[in-house]
């Protein structure tokens, strides 16, 4: 907590509330809670505000949407479909789009909000990961976040399956295939889910209930938990001047942060309204009603399911049949393995990292990504893996728009998802270490000032100046690794925690985590190169070009 005192206006309104509720201490404590300030801390708020807009626009849509597979003959405003047989669900979506005042705008805002909801969660999770904000004590919130992202994927899939258009029916067909591919119970599960043969009459009403009631309820609960835990634990902060592990440096919730976050809600709403008004999304009238016998080129899911689509598209056609049962690895593996690796990996990462580094302390200040090269490199490897699968999901669009060979693209990604993450790991780690070296150099020798000095004997060199205070604090936030205790002490007794095969693994991983760390520290007699004294500065002297 900060020592900031509230302005007069705050105290006055607090007194008003206190006279009625007697809650001064609670309000005083919480209204003046300090929030650190950084643009990347707002990414999660996009998700929060998109979610609110999703709830509002979704409620509007339920007033007209009819979750029914009843067959009707369309006769409405979109004359190009007049006389076409379709489900009640599709017909009512057409009605929302063309006959309900503001219906198309609401539909588009709802869909864009879903796209931004998932995108901002992913961006927020990347920010949390790369700054190490998931470390103790915030592991629980990290897990809740992964849970919300997973639920969001399901929620989105069920949502865009509701209108029963050609594209969503194709998505449901894949859902059916994936369910069926589960060994032993797949067929039963599929029949249970669809209430009979695909597509049947039951699936849309069932998905509707799950989409508007169950999953939003779960997400709402998780959002609440997420926010309360964050409030209780206080937000992590960037390693800036005045920020310490013990004390948050920033603005009080009331009035500064409240104004900022309120404004940000309006920004989110504004961007969504603009996109809903000017950028067309999911034109179901062009897709036509679902027909199991039809499909369109470029049938992709919404972006957050793209990674699954890509995995399915590049998977070789492996299938085994034994004892009268078929196991469809060609569907099972892409549906479970890639995302399984990413989500499981993300969920256990905080605990694995704490185990490897032996770091059991509380962390309230974020790490700069460069100062944890292995973490950053692993994150970039995961980003590459995910990104390649994601792009592979659009292989036919890429082939068409960039005049490439479709099989060429498929094979590129088949190889790329194995080599790409490895390359990303190596390159990212090298970049991190390079940046560490640069930091060490700035602290050790100062920054280039852009001022060229001429020495009495006619040589030119650039003057170096000590970095600004803010920059120095940020750079010096790096925690240099201490050499770990040797595996065996002088008497040959192994150190605790390095015994047994697990202990060996741990100390080897620990070495891999720390061995090439570059210490960034201030020297006792820091010499800020004034030019002209050979050595390191000699490299910097260059002829004047003007």
């Amino acid at each position, binding site marked *: 907590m900060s020592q900031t005192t509230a302005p007069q206006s705050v105290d006055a309104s607090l007194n008003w509330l206190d006279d009625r509720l007697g809650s001064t201490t609670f309000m005083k404590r919480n209204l003046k809670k300090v929030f650190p300030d950084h643009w990347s801390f707002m990414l999660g708020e996009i998700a929060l505000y998109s979610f609110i807009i999703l709830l509002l626009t979704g409620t509007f849509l339920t007033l007209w949407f009819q979750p029914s597979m009843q067959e009707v003959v369309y006769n409405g405003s979109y004359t190009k479909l007049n006389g076409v047989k379709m489900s009640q669900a599709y017909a009512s979506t057409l009605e929302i*789009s063309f006959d309900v005042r503001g219906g*198309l705008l609401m539909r588009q805002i709802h869909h864009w909000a879903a796209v931004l909801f998932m995108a901002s969660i992913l961006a927020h999770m990347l920010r949390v990961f790369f700054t190490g904000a998931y470390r103790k004590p915030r592991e629980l919130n990290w897990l809740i976040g992964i849970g919300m992202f997973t639920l969001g994927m399901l929620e989105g899939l069920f949502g865009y399956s509701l209108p029963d258009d050609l*594209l969503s029916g194709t998505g449901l067909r894949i859902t059916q295939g994936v369910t069926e591919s589960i060994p032993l119970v797949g067929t039963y599960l599929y029949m249970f889910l669809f209430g009979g043969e695909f597509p049947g009459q039951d699936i849309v009403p069932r998905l509707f209930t799950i989409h508007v009631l169950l999953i939003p309820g779960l997400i709402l609960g998780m959002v609440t938990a997420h926010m309360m835990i964050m409030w209780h634990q206080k937000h992590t902060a960037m390693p800036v001047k005045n920020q310490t592990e013990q004390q948050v440096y920033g603005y009080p919730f009331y009035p500064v942060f409240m104004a900022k976050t309120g404004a940000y809600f309006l920004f989110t709403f504004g*961007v969504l309204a603009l996109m809903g008004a000017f950028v067309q999304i999911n034109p179901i009238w062009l897709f036509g009603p679902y*027909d199991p016998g039809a499909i369109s*080129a*470029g049938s992709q*899911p919404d972006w957050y399911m793209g990674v699954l689509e890509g995995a399915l598209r590049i998977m070789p056609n492996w299938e085994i049949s034994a004892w009268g049962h078929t196991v469809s690895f060609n569907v099972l593996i892409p549906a479970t393995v890639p995302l399984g690796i990413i989500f499981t990996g993300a969920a256990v990462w905080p605990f694995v990292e704490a185990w490897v580094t032996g770091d059991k302390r509380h962390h309230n200040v974020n790490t700069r990504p460069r100062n944890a090269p292995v973490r950053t490199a692993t994150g970039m490897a995961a980003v590459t893996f995910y990104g390649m699968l994601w792009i592979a999901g*659009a292989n036919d669009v890429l*082939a068409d728009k960039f005049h490439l060979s479709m099989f060429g693209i498929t094979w590129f990604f088949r190889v790329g998802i194995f080599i790409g993450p490895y390359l990303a790991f190596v390159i990212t780690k090298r970049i991190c270490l390079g940046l560490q070296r640069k930091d060490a150099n700035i602290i050790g020798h100062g920054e280039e000032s852009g001022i060229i000095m001429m020495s009495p004997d006619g040589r030119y060199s650039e003057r170096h100046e000590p970095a600004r205070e803010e920059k120095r604090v940020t750079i010096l936030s790096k925690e240099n690794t201490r050499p770990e205790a040797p595996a065996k002490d002088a008497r040959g007794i192994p150190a605790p925690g390095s015994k047994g095969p697990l202990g060996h693994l741990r100390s080897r991983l620990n070495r891999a985590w720390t061995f090439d760390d570059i210490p960034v520290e201030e020297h006792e007699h820091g010499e800020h190169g004034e030019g002209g004294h050979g050595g390191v500065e000699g490299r910097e002297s260059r002829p004047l070009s003007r």
Partner: protein
Amino acid sequence: MRRITAWRRRPWAGYAVVLAALAAIGAIYAGFSPQTGRAEAEGTAAAAQDLGNGKQLFNKNCASCHGLNAEGTKDAKGKPIAPSLIGVGAASVDFQVSTGRMPAMNPGAQMPRKEPIPPFDTSIKTDYEEKEKREAAEKQKAQAEKNLADLRAYISSLGNGPDVPPASAVDPKTGDVALGGKLFRTNCAQCHNFTGQGGALTGGKYAPPLNNSDVTPTQIYEAMLTGPQAMPVFNDTTLTPKDKQAIIAYLVQTREEPNPGGNGLGRIGPVSEGLAGWLIGIGLLVLAAMWITAKKPKKLKKP
């Protein structure tokens, strides 16, 4: 100049330089890249048939691949280079030549649509102000139409095949759009996409886009009838002339229909939507976040 010198060391200077360089490259590229505009081809005006002229045109433009008697040619290993044209019919000739696919320039996985060669280019501009220029262009156009008709007549004389459809059979205004949409989604959309934006096929082939106004109703009809390149043949028993007209009506009316929801993002489905969501949506909101969390900048130090 002094101001630029002062700005050189600002934190955003690097980004500004990259942005300026990208803009410059874009502008230069736009200046150099060839412009491809094309007017609607009028295909099938009546012209006197002249088999002699047709044969001459064939020998000059087609025989090098299709053989002097249009029997087709094979390479040394017996792999076909060009198919026989005996019995392909006038519709096929009209489609291939009026879309510029034939004569082929550069054999590859698939012949691209291009500007027809001058003797067959019926889409040239004739609305010149000057009288002589206009008359010359009109003459050239009439000659191109006659050439095309002669070539069609010559190929038809070698063996009968499907004929060029009459204008009444391809009129998009009289077709049944709802039926056409259904048939299009069942038979065509899997390659050409749900609004005819085109799509990729295997082996470097592709289903060309049908959404440009230069793909005429006659050409669409002829393509269904003759199945050029990777496309299957939809003869009159698979899709009756009425069905074909319905498909043409769906395609033409859909491509002329404005997008009620704003920018259509190319009408290619969720790929471009995801891109827009990330680039426009997240992009704008990140800018907004940077703006509202920005520190008040200190004034530039006077040098």
